[in-house]
């Protein structure tokens, strides 16, 4: 349903306000890492190999995939589009573009297109239209927000499963295994998740490395389940056993920062405004250096068809925040005493504020030993 609405929106925009602004076709690239552009146009959630779709102004879509397993999956998931198994995907798409001479073709994301195709940009009138699609990825339709709302609910439920899996002696990857089983049985096809286990020595989160939990460890995670292609994120920190005073004090600062960021979210502000609100809290407590890229990457980001969508919430990002966007506000960073700590809630932007989508209490959880 939502895929059809997205396609109508996309092809309407391709027609442009004026003839000289129109695109005859759009070339979209995707793989399982950066799959959002491809998913937006085709609704296909690619897993293996690479996919390139040609979206024509009349709504006809040809999807080229280089894996026979993915060709089967695409035919099942996307019955309305033409699926082509193309082991030599660059050669096949190249040949298709040869048949589209004298047409204006856009590409997104241009930087990930296979070199051989992008190198022909001048020959085939191919222009970079990444920003054109980026806008649609950020400013969502109501149905897209509904999907994110469902994913956020499952993020809350998944975090409960994750917490229940925690006990001393368990390995980090075992906690994720339990969450994944819950997700597969409950409509979640994919999940982005990284984890941190330990104390002051932990500078960030990464995939599980086999570290075993012990009393006093902080366990950080960002859990990002995907429903109908849409990812929603939650970030929480727990302590194995009772939290100590320093961990509690740090968490209070993180919470004040996140809540300051969320209080800033509304139609018309910029990504920088939200980041500044979060960082000002750190600066107020003399912790401003922990808002720099030496210790943290972003202070939040968009949520949607990519787990790390635009806009990035940083003080130098001036993207205007609009009603219909979905964001995670997370002042995740390193604390010099207790280590890397995370706290973040997903929100949907509204005219006068935002709807907080994740409902898990904003606590530093203690898991009884």
């Amino acid at each position: 349903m939502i895929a059809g609405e997205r396609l109508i929106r996309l092809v309407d925009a391709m027609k442009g306000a004026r003839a000289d602004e129109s695109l005859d076709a759009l070339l979209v690239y995707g793989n399982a890492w950066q799959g959002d552009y491809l998913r937006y146009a085709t609704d296909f959630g690619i897993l293996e190999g690479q996919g390139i779709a040609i979206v024509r102004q009349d709504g006809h879509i040809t999807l080229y995939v280089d894996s026979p397993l993915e060709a089967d999956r695409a035919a099942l998931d996307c019955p309305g589009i033409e699926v082509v198994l193309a082991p030599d995907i660059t050669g096949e798409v190249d040949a298709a573009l040869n048949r589209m001479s004298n047409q204006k073709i856009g590409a997104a994301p241009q930087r990930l297109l296979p070199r051989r195709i992008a190198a022909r940009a001048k020959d085939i009138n191919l222009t970079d239209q990444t920003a054109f699609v980026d806008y649609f990825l950020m400013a969502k339709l109501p149905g897209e927000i509904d999907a994110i709302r469902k994913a956020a609910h499952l993020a809350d439920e998944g975090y409960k499963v994750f917490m229940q899996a925690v006990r001393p002696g368990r390995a980090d990857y075992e906690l994720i295994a339990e969450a994944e089983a819950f997700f597969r049985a409950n409509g979640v096809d994919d999940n982005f998740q990284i984890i941190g286990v330990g104390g002051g020595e932990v500078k960030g989160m990464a995939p599980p490395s086999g570290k075993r939990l012990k009393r006093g460890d902080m366990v950080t995670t960002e859990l990002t389940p995907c429903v109908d292609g849409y990812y929603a994120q939650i970030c929480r920190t727990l302590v194995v056993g009772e939290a100590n005073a320093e961990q509690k004090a740090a968490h209070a600062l993180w919470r004040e920062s996140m809540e300051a960021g969320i209080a800033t979210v509304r139609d018309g502000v910029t990504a920088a405004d939200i980041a500044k609100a979060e960082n000002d809290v750190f600066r107020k407590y003399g912790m401003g250096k922990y808002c720099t890229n030496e210790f943290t990457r972003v202070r939040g980001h968009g949520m949607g068809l990519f787990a790390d969508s635009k806009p990035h919430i940083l003080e130098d990002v001036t993207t205007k925040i609009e009603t219909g966007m979905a964001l995670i506000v997370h002042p995740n960073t390193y604390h010099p005493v207790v280590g890397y700590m995370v706290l973040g809630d997903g929100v949907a932007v509204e005219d006068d504020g935002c709807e907080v989508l994740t409902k898990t209490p904003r606590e530093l959880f203690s898991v009884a030993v």
Partner: protein
Amino acid sequence: MRRGLMGRNEKELPVAAIEARLARLRGAMQAAGLDAFVVYTNNVRPSAVTWITGFTPYWSDALLLVGKSGAPAFATALSKRVSEWIRTTDPVSEIVNTPKPGSLIGERLKSDASVRRVGVLEYDTLPAGLANDLAAAAPTVEWLDGTALFAGLRREIDSAERDLLARADAIAVAALREAETGKASDAGTLAGLIEQHARLAGAEEAYIAVAPDLDADRRLNRTSQPTPLADRFAVRASVAYKGCWVRRTRTFAKDGSAAKADAWFASVVQSIGPKKPLAAQLAEKIKALSGATMDSWMAESCVGSYPLSVIASSRLSADATPLDGQFLVLTAEATIGGSPWIGTAPLIVSQKAL
């Protein structure tokens, strides 16, 4: 993205094994007259860099530069804070964090006056942004496709890779037994149980696909939906352990009728040999399964950046001949007494087991 166990273990993948692989690559570069070799990686195309260095990205992308000597340079847009983690899986590279990996590698190449000819794995499909940055930073370099050169190195697997593949396969085999327990009556729950089993056993990644009613449709798909499992269904587990991937597909029939085909297929994968086209070998072997016709087959291997890619199939390159010692993942689809059956298993040509 990867979210299972990731980490190098010296016993499983010794530094000496990685260095031996690097030496083989450099030998092939010298024979081809290449001064350097560039390899792209992301979490969909990780396998070449994994083979050369041990590293698999969980997210994002990167470029690896292998020169004639010295440590390879691994240039990634991942932050410096992630370098510590990268080092736990890659013991040999110089890790360089940069927002522009292509520019950095290009500048390295430009700064060495002896570098003229550079091989690039899968040059045609290198992401355009990185390719442009490389070319802009090193405008006098001659870029050559190094795909065939690299595939030549991957025709044989070393003992470390073989052991990792065997571990991945053991995980897949055990995980698929979840379908025999009767704990799940729908596809989503079953996929969750199988994935959970694989991840608890240390899988780096597990893609579970199900054909919930094999009589109605043989195509397998990722699922998280409560689609009821019919009397005959199939499940595919694509499992990675420490960067090494296998697939297993099994057909489950409530009347037990898949067992005969399973036993036949187990003997087939132990008996694939070299020097004779796979199509001919399979056509001969299907005769041993009474009442069966072979509908299609496919052989995959790891020859480049993809974990597994098709190297021969009934639809493509049907006359391909396996090589002695080659790692393959073989899929066969058959109709037996009017009922569909699908099986997938890994094998090493001319050997009884992984």
